[in-house]
């Protein structure tokens, strides 16, 4: 892993994938002896020995294919000239890679390839960065003796329909790397070879790339050895000259990318093969949707205003910070520390998040700090801590490749966690079984070469009932892993739980009326899950964002323990975190009741540690959560809020409630890239820096801490942690961090699970999975291997928790007969602040309401009609998409566009334990509509006014 920007050069490629074997094989290549694992190809062995056998169709991200025929070798005792990519090593094998005959053959093959290829290398966008060019040089091709008048594909039309990359078939050498990447790596199968023989051509199924099944993940582009599939930015800008390894700032998968630049100009983002979360794969967002960092909407100058009905005034940093500090001090003086609070961002780095909560606790003097991570994954923290003793998923992503049955509940990985979904699909194609629990028929239920064994299309809001019924089957049918429970879990609690789930009222038959899942399907799914060697559970916001979110997480943990699926590869309970640093934001002490490392604020010893380090006294009382802050604002006891990198107006439920709370405050400081929706209610706007402009760390869903590196100078001049530090200093705190590395040192000092983490170590090792401590000096890919984390009871045994199914108070009725559930789409990301400011909008211009044909028909709605979506809370309008992906009685939409504001409709019901909002269940009515709702029109007005910026004096 590279610390400093490196000169641009392609990443090393060993030609064929690594072979894993305990058996070692000795052979000689060109007389050199070497030993490699059995199953290694001759090509890879030669590459490991430092040689470079010419090749075109081979690349180490794909299975050997053997089509280009450039890598021929001679092997003693073997007939002919086998291809080194498809020939595995054997004990005692003697290989020659360079003989006069091989030289002649390779040159002959290359001459054929070049006889159907343009010759304008110097004006080609891949010039000097082209494997074909390299190979031609390696084999010493000097002339194409066939001449230039023969049949060729040089007139084939290029396809530039995709906004980010173009396909030029004239430059294609038909090596099939793109087709195989789409199949093997991405799992979409959107590409094929069309025709045959000389007519063979890569094709997205005879359609345009944009119109095809392509999901624009970029795997084909990364795999292409020529300029046939290439980023448009390369053609526009030129070959990069330096590169920085960093971590993607979209979802919780945490893909490692290599940012490639010319000077300060980012040319492209290329997935980094050594990234342990993504192994060189990417999705359309991380790979291509980085243009927002340069979008004209970006604000790079601080702004202030006295009142929110005034236009903004651009000012210098000192004036802005001085203005903010003065207001904060004044409010604190007048109303006390409890009137102040802050919100950390799961989009920012660990270091930045840590500083914001430190500012609130040590600077403001309250524990009124909360995070957007609570509105998505706080039930994960609560539920896994209650059962396993620690608030995090148990596995690394690679673990899925050892799973035999995979239960996906309340998650839609192909859209929301696409790079992990690709691995999951690889495993399914290898034969693992899949159970999907989701109200919608998500793509995983059935898409090319993947089909769920069972899809339990439950009624939204009934996760606990479904999981309890599964537990009922497993316990009553004797499918429990008794050995595991005896060895690893609390006996009494298990027995309580077992008695509870065995009650007849928890049978699939009894609960079918509530869950609407046919009992037979549920029983079969439960048996399947319990019967396989390794069962893994993956879940997302469809589990947490419910009034029973925490109960569901505990029910999942119960199921995993009951079936013995904890503590080794291929099993576990795995939350798929929505945002890049949800895990980190939680780890860093962003919740009002706990300090970093999930230690309760009331714990004196922990507090003392921090007090000593920070030199202040800390309040032992848990602070306010976001909705509590908003309530308190309305009653006047809460008046100032510092919000870093979050748009609570759009992302939090019940927009009216959020707006009213914000409007009641006296000092709202928004620290962001854009004048977001929340900024309409702000008095101070502090320009933020994008992930490309700062150094720090993100922690992904598998607890993997990875470096984010400053790729370019911040447009606003400061990294976000520097802004927070400047605000703290304006408030009179003597903070003197000279780098984000120093902040990480403090985190490590104060947080046991981060004890062994430092930027230096991350630079050297690439990534670390916490806990990194004395017991786990190299981190922890899989947790709870030998025992559970010792809890307050100190015994380190798994705790079964009885999870009673308490239905939400949100009920359908005559007025609101349908249930609305919400989610995400592949090309867009959360509130869309980033992705809407990129060409990704070409795939998803607006939020659509998915509705079942029978529900649409009974309302007189047809595909594309505009509809009014109303709940008890509010209403909005949007166009409908009629589809059987949703069951009758259920509607679905995304929340990526502020013009739709799906959260105007969602209620303020929330998880009983953590307040995580119940985004996933809202009773609604859908009726035909002619235009935007009154609210949408008012809101458009309001934001236009609130975003005025006064002309410079």
């Amino acid at each position, binding site marked *: 892993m590279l610390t400093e920007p490196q000169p641009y050069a392609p990443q090393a490629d060993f030609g064929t994938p690594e072979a894993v074997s305990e058996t070692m094989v000795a052979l000689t290549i060109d007389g050199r002896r070497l030993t490699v694992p059995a199953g290694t190809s001759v090509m890879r062995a030669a590459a490991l020995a430092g040689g470079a056998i010419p090749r075109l169709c081979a690349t180490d991200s794909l299975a050997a294919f053997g089509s280009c*025929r450039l890598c021929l070798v001679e092997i003693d005792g073997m007939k002919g000239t086998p291809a080194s990519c498809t020939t595995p090593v054997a004990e005692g094998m003697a290989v020659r890679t360079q003989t006069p005959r091989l030289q*002649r*053959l390779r040159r*002959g*093959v290359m001459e*054929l390839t070049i006889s159907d290829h343009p010759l304008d290398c110097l004006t080609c966008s891949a010039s000097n960065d082209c494997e074909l060019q390299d190979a031609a040089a390696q084999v010493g091709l*000097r002339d194409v003796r*066939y001449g230039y008048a023969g049949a060729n594909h040089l007139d084939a039309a290029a396809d530039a329909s995709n906004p980010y990359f173009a396909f030029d078939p004239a430059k294609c050498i038909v090596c099939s790397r793109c087709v195989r990447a789409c199949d093997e790596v991405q799992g979409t199968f959107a590409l094929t*070879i069309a*025709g045959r023989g000389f007519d063979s051509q890569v094709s997205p199924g005879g359609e345009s790339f944009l119109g095809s099944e392509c999901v624009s993940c970029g795997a084909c582009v990364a795999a292409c050895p020529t300029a046939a599939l290439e980023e448009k930015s390369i053609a526009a800008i030129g070959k990069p000259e330096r590169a920085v390894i960093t971590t993607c700032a979209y979802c919780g998968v945490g893909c490692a990318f290599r940012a490639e630049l010319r000077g300060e100009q980012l040319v492209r983002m290329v997935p980094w093969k050594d990234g342990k979360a993504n192994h060189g794969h990417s999705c359309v967002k991380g790979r291509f949707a980085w243009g927002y960092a340069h979008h004209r909407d970006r604000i790079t100058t601080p702004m202030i205003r006295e009142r929110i009905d005034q236009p903004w005034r651009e000012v210098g940093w000192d004036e802005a910070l001085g203005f903010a500090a003065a207001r904060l001090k004044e409010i604190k003086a007048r109303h006390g520390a409890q009137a102040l609070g802050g919100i950390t961002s799961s989009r920012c780095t660990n270091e930045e998040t840590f500083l914001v909560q430190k500012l609130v606790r040590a600077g403001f003097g309250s524990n009124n700090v909360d995070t957007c991570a609570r509105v998505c994954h706080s039930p994960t923290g609560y539920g896994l801590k209650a059962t396993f003793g620690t608030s995090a998923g148990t596995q690394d992503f690679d673990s899925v490749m050892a799973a035999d049955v995979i239960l996906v509940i309340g998650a839609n990985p192909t859209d929301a966690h696409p790079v992990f979904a690709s691995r999951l699909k690889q495993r399914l194609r290898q034969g693992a079984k899949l159970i999907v629990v989701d109200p919608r028929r998500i793509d995983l239920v059935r898409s090319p070469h993947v089909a769920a064994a069972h899809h339990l299309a439950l009624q939204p809001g009934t996760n606990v009932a479904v999981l309890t019924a599964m537990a009922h089957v497993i316990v009553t049918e004797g499918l429990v892993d008794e050995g595991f429970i005896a060895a690893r879990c609390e006996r009494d609690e298990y027995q309580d739980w077992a008695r509870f789930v065995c009650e007849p009222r928890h049978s699939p038959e009894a609960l079918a009326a509530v869950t609407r899942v046919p009992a037979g399907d549920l029983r079969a799914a439960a048996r399947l899950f319990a019967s396989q060697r390794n069962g893994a559970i993956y879940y997302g916001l469809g589990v947490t964002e419910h009034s029973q979110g925490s109960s569901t997480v505990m029910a999942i943990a119960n199921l995993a323990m009951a079936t013995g699926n904890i503590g080794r590869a291929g099993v576990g309970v795995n939350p798929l975190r929505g945002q890049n640093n949800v895990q980190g934001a939680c780890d860093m002490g962003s919740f009002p009741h706990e300090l970093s490392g999930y230690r309760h604020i009331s714990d004196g010893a922990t507090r003392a540690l921090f007090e000593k380090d920070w030199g202040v006294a800390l309040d032992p009382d848990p602070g306010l959560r976001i909705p509590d802050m908003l309530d308190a604002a309305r009653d006047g006891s809460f008046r100032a809020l510092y919000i870093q990198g979050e748009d609570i107006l759009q992302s939090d439920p019940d927009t009216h409630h959020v707006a009213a709370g914000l409007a009641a405050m006296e000092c709202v400081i928004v620290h962001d890239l854009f004048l977001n929706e929340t900024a309409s209610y702000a008095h101070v706007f502090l320009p933020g820096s994008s992930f490309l402009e700062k150094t720090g760390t993100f922690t992904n869903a598998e607890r993997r801490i990875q470096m984010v590196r400053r790729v370019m100078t911040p447009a606003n001049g400061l990294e976000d942690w520097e802004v927070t530090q400047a605000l703290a200093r304006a408030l009179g705190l003597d903070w003197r961090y000279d780098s984000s590395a120093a902040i990480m040192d403090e985190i490590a000092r104060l947080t046991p699970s981060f004890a062994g983490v430092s930027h230096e170590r991350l630079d050297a090792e690439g990534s670390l999975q916490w806990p990194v401590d004395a017991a786990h000096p190299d981190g922890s890919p899989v947790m709870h291997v030998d025992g559970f984390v010792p809890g307050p009871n100190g015994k380190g045994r798994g705790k079964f928790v009885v999870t009673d199914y308490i239905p939400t108070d949100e009920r359908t009725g005559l007025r609101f007969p349908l249930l609305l559930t919400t989610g995400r789409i592949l090309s867009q990301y959360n509130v869309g602040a980033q992705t809407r400011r990129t060409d990704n909008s070409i795939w998803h211009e607006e939020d659509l309401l998915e509705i079942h044909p029978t529900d649409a028909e009974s309302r007189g709605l047809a595909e594309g009609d505009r509809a009014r979506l109303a709940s008890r809370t509010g209403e909005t309008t949007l166009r409908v998409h009629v589809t059987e992906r949703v069951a009758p009685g259920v509607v679905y939409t995304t929340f990526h566009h502020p013009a739709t504001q799906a959260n105007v409709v969602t209620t303020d019901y929330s998880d009983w334990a953590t307040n995580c909002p119940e985004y996933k269940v809202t009773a609604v009515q859908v009726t035909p509509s002619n235009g935007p709702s009154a609210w949408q029109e008012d809101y458009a007005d309001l934001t236009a006014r609130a975003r005025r910026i006064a002309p410079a004096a």
Partner: protein
Amino acid sequence: MTTVRISDDALARACGADALAQAFAVAGCTVERVSSWGMHWLEPLVEVDGLGFGPATAADVPGILAGLSDKAIGRIGEHRFLARQQRLTFARAGRTRPLSLGDYAATHGWEGLARARAIGPQAIIAEVIASGLRGRGGAGFPAGIKLRTVAEAQAPRKFVVCNADEGDSGTFADRMLMEGDPFALIEGMAIAAHAVGAEAGYVYVRSEYPHAVAKMRAACTLAAPRIAPLHIEVRVGAGAYVCGEETSLLNSLEGKRGEVRAKPPLPALAGLFGCPTVVNNVLTLAALPHILSEGGAAHYAGLGHGRSRGTMPIQLAGNIRHGGLFEVPFGITLDELVNTIGGGTASGRAVKAVQVGGPLGAYIPPSRFDLPFDYEAYAAADALIGHGGVVVFDERVDMARMARFAMEFCAAESCGKCTPCRIGSTRGVELLDRIATGAAPDALAALPQMRNAPRGLRGRADDIALLEELCETMQYGSLCALGGFTPFPVLSALRHWPQDFG
């Protein structure tokens, strides 16, 4: 009432057998449709009480029934063409009704399978190995070793696949067997399946053989109870010569593009749907019932020449007077086949060349007609036996054109996966055209930007040298035999008939 026997083999029907049968029926005869004896120049051949008449037309019916026809050839079974043969695989040819279970059982049908079941998998494999049977599809791999590999592979499912994609010009033995004695193939597959533990089998027949498809499907239905638990399904190709290559065939069976797979893995270990699979040609599988009969393996091993054991159904085709199916032990010479048995050319002109082994086989001049029919002997002569097709050309053939055709065929049938075959075959056609017509100035090569291109024309000698190098690239560089063997006809034509190349 007279019973006449007329073949319903596709070749006989193409030559008018249906109309002839109809004429006999109208004349009040009972017509039995049997398989073909394989004496094609005599088709449609009519058998009345063991006496043969052919080639017959409706006009010959009264004469034949009167016993006065000039189409009479005497007793069929004693015909010279048959008398010289040793028919094991084609023992029933001409003698039975193809879909008659009764006829099959009456002619030792199912005896091999019954014995195989009695002696068990290990003994079956041992006998096949002992027989010396080698794959008849062209590669000549020992059939017993393949069975053993599949048998020893650990897998929940295994398959037996019959490669009936007989695409080589000049070959028709598979078609004749499937149309004439389909139960023999089914019995052979059942023996192989029993040996390896497979419960499903596929017969992949090319779509150019609609009659074979129909017969095989009917036969599979009739034989289903006999071979259970084995289930055999007939699948039809879709116009792709390359699907005769086993891995391409497997891809096609899986519903994919018929692209060739790189080996390893061998199909015996990871074949159809990734499972261990026996893939064998029709003639290989159809040889098993005889080999598994009591004493069959030893009998089989006792025949032949060198390492090529048993008999080979050789197909005499093209411009030959007595074309047809000729099954003999290995070792027979081309001279005997073409001149003695085949009677020279049909045109009566001098023989110029024969192509043995289909479109990928070498052209052999009469000066080499002493070559014994034997895998190793042919390989040593840069030739191949392939599927045993012998196509005779008379003196009018232009061997440069045949070389061009070899490249053209390869270009038309290349799967497109590997570079030498995909591009090389097209360049080969262009190069042979350039050799035939003389090089024209290449406008692009003449541009001043093209500093590395030679100034002036490339000469014929240069082009011949390039053709030879292209052939080397294709032969050693191609992924499968299609690109790898196309140089055989090209280079053999160039070597033996250089004058045809100008």
